[in-house]
């Protein structure tokens, strides 16, 4: 696999094994000679680095622009507050108040300001770490505590995607804005689930999202053997391919809890991930990449 292809590893439910699948798939592909990138977009709680143990060569702040008022230049005209849809800028009694956590950085307020009293200033929302694990490219975002500009930071992590590599995007759990930001523009999605009623409930939500976004997808069943067969029945009825099943195996849990790659600790897992790589290669060729 040498042409660019972006695979997102997502799930509705948290803790189903997204990072396990994403990191091990990235490692197997890199070992097979693919040009691979692993991008941790679970920026509120990134943990891919625990398993991949990258050599981080660069760390930089990620900032967004928010308005800053110079009261000496403000005439109190109020245009800034009128254009803001989020209440992040308001002009009352001749003074402008700004509320940075509400700002979406559209830039409307400083563009309509007739006197230049409002100017953009950088606000740190997180950081980006980049490095390598052998031949594997590694990038990970970390959101600053107390900040909510998750989609903006995810966009910065994804800006690292190279056009000539297989990019594996580790997506946050759920189905809200950060997930949409992480999934937007990817070529293929793997939805990781557990075969339990909880897992199935949240899988259905995730399926609804990827269908709405018109993204091709398949399911990975993790901890196969627990719960019931309703997840498999659901996938069959909905015509959703099951790309891989990972067994419920105590050795996998032990390796995971020690921060080890399960493809190294449990040899049987290697075959499953090699087969998953083949499946992705097939999808990539079907997509015409």
């Amino acid at each position, binding site marked *: 696999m040498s042409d660019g292809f972006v695979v997102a590893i997502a799930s509705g439910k948290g803790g189903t094994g997204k990072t396990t699948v994403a990191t091990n798939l990235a490692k197997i592909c890199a070992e097979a000679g693919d040009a691979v990138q692993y991008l941790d977009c679970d920026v509120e709680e990134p943990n891919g680095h625990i398993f991949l143990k990258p050599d981080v060569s660069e760390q930089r702040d990620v900032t967004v622009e928010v308005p800053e008022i110079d009261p000496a230049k403000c005439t109190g005209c109020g245009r800034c507050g009128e254009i803001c849809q989020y209440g992040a800028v308001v002009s009352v009694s001749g003074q402008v*108040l700004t509320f940075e956590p509400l700002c979406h950085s559209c830039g409307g307020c400083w563009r309509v300001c007739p006197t230049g009293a409002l100017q953009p200033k950088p606000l740190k929302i997180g950081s980006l770490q980049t490095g390598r694990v052998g031949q594997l490219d590694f990038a990970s975002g970390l959101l600053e505590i107390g900040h909510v500009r998750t989609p903006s930071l995810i966009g910065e992590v994804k800006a690292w995607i190279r056009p000539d590599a297989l990019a594996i995007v580790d997506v946050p759990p759920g189905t809200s804005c950060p997930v949409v930001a992480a999934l937007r523009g990817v070529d293929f999605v793997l939805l990781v689930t557990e075969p339990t009623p909880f897992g199935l409930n949240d899988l259905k939500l995730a399926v609804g999202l990827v269908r709405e976004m018109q993204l091709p997808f398949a399911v990975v069943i993790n901890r196969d053997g627990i719960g019931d067969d309703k997840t498999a029945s659901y996938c069959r009825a909905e015509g959703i391919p099951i790309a891989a099943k990972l067994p419920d195996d105590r050795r996998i849990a032990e390796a995971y809890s020690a921060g080890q790659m399960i493809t190294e600790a449990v040899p049987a897992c290697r075959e499953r991930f090699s087969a998953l790589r083949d499946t992705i290669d097939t999808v990539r060729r079907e997509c015409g990449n």
Partner: protein
Amino acid sequence: MKIAVTSVGTEMDSQVDPRFGRAACFIVVETETMAFDVVENGNVASAGGAGINTAKAVIDTGAQAVLTGNCGPNAERTLRAGDIKLYTGVKGTVAEALEQFKAGALTEATGPSVDSHAGMGQ
């Protein structure tokens, strides 16, 4: 003196709305004459910044004080910038709230009474 009271309805005997930013409406009363206007609140279902925009709207009515149930930090900061006196923890009907205010039975708030987003989904 003009006073804005958050209200769930449009009458003086309507209940005080416990929310500020997402109050159903405001009854703005001139205490000398007890003549009042009903101001609909356009921020009831706002995606964000409801308290700030509602505070701005209240300031624009010319009111000098607000009587309400709860008020969050962003709205409180905006009202303070507009030199509006804030009274939280107010209950009963709008008319009763005004009587309490006139009798000096209400204590001016020294800060927000709840965190941001407390009035969402109510």
